[in-house]
């Protein structure tokens, strides 16, 4: 019972900055929480809100979206588009009661291995504090239960 809750976190990252930043965290042998699973995409511009919803459906307690700092996008402005999209999507999540603590956004460059490691630790702790996303998981469980009427 007293096992600490291990949140499941899915990260959608661009390959040029944050993925490389995570690589740097690795080559620097920084240590961070093992709760995050990275999905590599070419650019933050490719990261659709659908991914976030599906990660939640797959049982994620938290989702992280990360890419290049403004101006650094390998594709020049994929991250600017993404930023607008996220602004709106966040408002939507908030309004429908999906806690924003569970869906985080960040800019992490290829040079920011330390930031990546620290960020994963912080977000993992934050979500650990939040606990499992029971409300959403209940919806998922409901789909798996037999008809009651």
């Amino acid at each position, binding site marked *: 019972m007293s096992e600490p809750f291990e949140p499941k976190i899915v990260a959608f990252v661009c390959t040029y900055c944050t993925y490389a930043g995570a690589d740097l965290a*690795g*080559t620097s042998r920084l*240590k961070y929480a093992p709760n995050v699973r990275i999905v590599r995409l070419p650019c933050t511009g490719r990261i659709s809100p659908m991914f976030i919803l599906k990660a939640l459906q*797959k049982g994620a307690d938290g989702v992280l979206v990360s890419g290049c700092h403004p101006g650094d996008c*390998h*594709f020049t402005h994929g991250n600017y588009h993404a930023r607008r999209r996220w602004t709106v999507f966040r408002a939507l999540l908030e309004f429908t009661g999906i806690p924003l603590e569970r869906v985080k956004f960040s800019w992490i460059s290829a040079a920011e291995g330390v930031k990546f490691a620290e960020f994963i630790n912080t977000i993992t702790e934050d979500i650990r504090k939040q606990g499992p996303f029971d409300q959403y998981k209940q919806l998922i469980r409901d789909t798996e239960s037999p008809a009651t009427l």
Partner: protein
Amino acid sequence: MAKIGVFICHCGENVAAKIDCTQLTAAIGEHPGVAVSVEYKYFCSDPGQESVKKAIREHGLTGVVVAACSPRMHEATFRNACAEAGLNPYLCEIANIREHCSWVHTDKDMATIKALEITRSLVEKVKRNNELRPIEVPVTRRALVIGGGIAGIQAALDIANAGHEVVLVEREASLGGHMAQLSETFPTLDCSQCIMTPRMVEAARHPKIRLLTYAEIERVEGYIGNFKVKVRMKSRSVDMKKCTGCGDCMLKCPVKKISSEFDCGLGKRAAIYTPFAQSVPNIPVIDKKRCTYFKNGKCQICSKSCPINAIDFTIEDEFLDIEIGAIVVATGFQIQNTAMYGEYGYGKYADVITGLQFERLASASGPTSGKILRPSDNSEPQTVVFIQCAGSRDPSKGVRYCSKICCMYTAKHAMLYAHKVHGGKTHIFYMDIRAGGKGYDEFTRRAIEEDEASYVRGRVSKVWQENGRLMVRGVDTLLGRPVEVAADMVVLATAIIAQPDAKEFAKTVGIGYDEYGFYNEAHLKLRPVESSTAGIYLAGCCQSPKDIPDSVAQASATASKVLALFSKEQLEREPVVASNNEATCAGCWGCVLACPYGAIEQKDILDRSGRLIKRVASVNPGLCQGCGTCVTFCRSNSIDLAGFTERQIFAEVMGL
């Protein structure tokens, strides 16, 4: 519905120490669709790759997942191996269980579970990977070199000498860059101008090189092999075709007391001028901000004095559109303004100068014709203090990095001074002497031993004026005591910084830059002269501080990259590009607006009688760079990105 091979690499102990590879191999082997699952010490080794190939052939694999290091390391390796075994290379994915797992986690159980989930999700992805074939695009075999310093000139000459057209663009009125300003060069002490000017002339006269000076890059569009570049030819107000470079105008110009940029403010020039005497081309420009005519509408003395009427005040900026196949960026550097060190008194005391100003003083063609004279009173300084790292390696006020060349040029300055002012004394405050390079350490030893440069290890805390002399207070950390020197001149080894407009320019060209504004190479070790944008290469100090030999070497390296690109008429490009489902496209054009590359065009769908049925989006695979921004924008899910399709990502997430 698939036969996937999973290859789990121990990477020696790098993976195996933190991940139970045997357990992982067994667990993933139980996953539906996994036909073979094996572990091995080093899959990237030859025998490792051979075993992957063998498995592909033996089991008729339809996909491969290598669980190993980052795909940024060995994706290409394993994709090649797959191709050699007859499997389309894009049916291979890399699960990063080293950088993203074994190296960063301490709990073996948790790491093993994570590795399994990472691998499983990529197995699910690879099941949905499609065979992709490289896209062939035509290559315009004409290079653009941006920057007419030594790096740019070298790159241009190398490419031109191989027989390809080069457009060399320099924003100043003359080629030369910083190297033209230098007096002698280390470690040989040969005259900079003597080796530089012939190269400038060679570049200017080369039949394959089109030289555009006093010109700037306005816009870069397109993609590797097919760039469209707009160049702004700033108006010189001098007809380049007519001007013979006689220089009468410069002599006649009444505005003569303009501080010369080339001489770092130590000399003067006119409002119509060439940057320096050996300018290439030797054609003056009118400094419109200073010219009396442009300011007040009166004067025109230069025009009247010109024997061939080459001066034309009505010339406007012109724009050239040039088709380019490859771009070499060699935009160089600036030196940091050291005024932020109030304690050094730069800008306050005339005799506190920068290293580059010292170069001008020491240069035979400089304002003092090579005599070392104090700017304040034109007297010969008897004691000179050199302060190294005046900006470099100083996170608090300057820059964090080492500017790399200052140790060497300071030693050179001490030597030049010793050679010119016999009996003069030099004191050099330094942090470390970094003299790595062929003949470099010998050079600094010579400065100390033969030319009696006095090296003091320590920083200078203050420079002030006292009785017409500059008092330098520092500390000798080796002796552990404060030092005070009375000097006649203080020379600061200022930091090399990126051009002030480097970031803006990077965005114009479409390349990445680091926090300092130096341009990012695609890979620091393995692709040091390529930018992350295909077809754009980096030479010289725009990438990082470096000395002349390094700049020249890098320039030649970019030339070899360009020549490799130009060696074929067609270029094979990564097929990771978007494509549109025309049947479901609603034609809202959001993707067209969202595409950073203008790669999406409108396409009319006509019926047999030529009547317009509907308009849909159509992706030009030659322009598409594969960012996928359009895919996310598309509300009807009509556009998709090969290699990262919606199906693949869906499966990847669902496989986690």
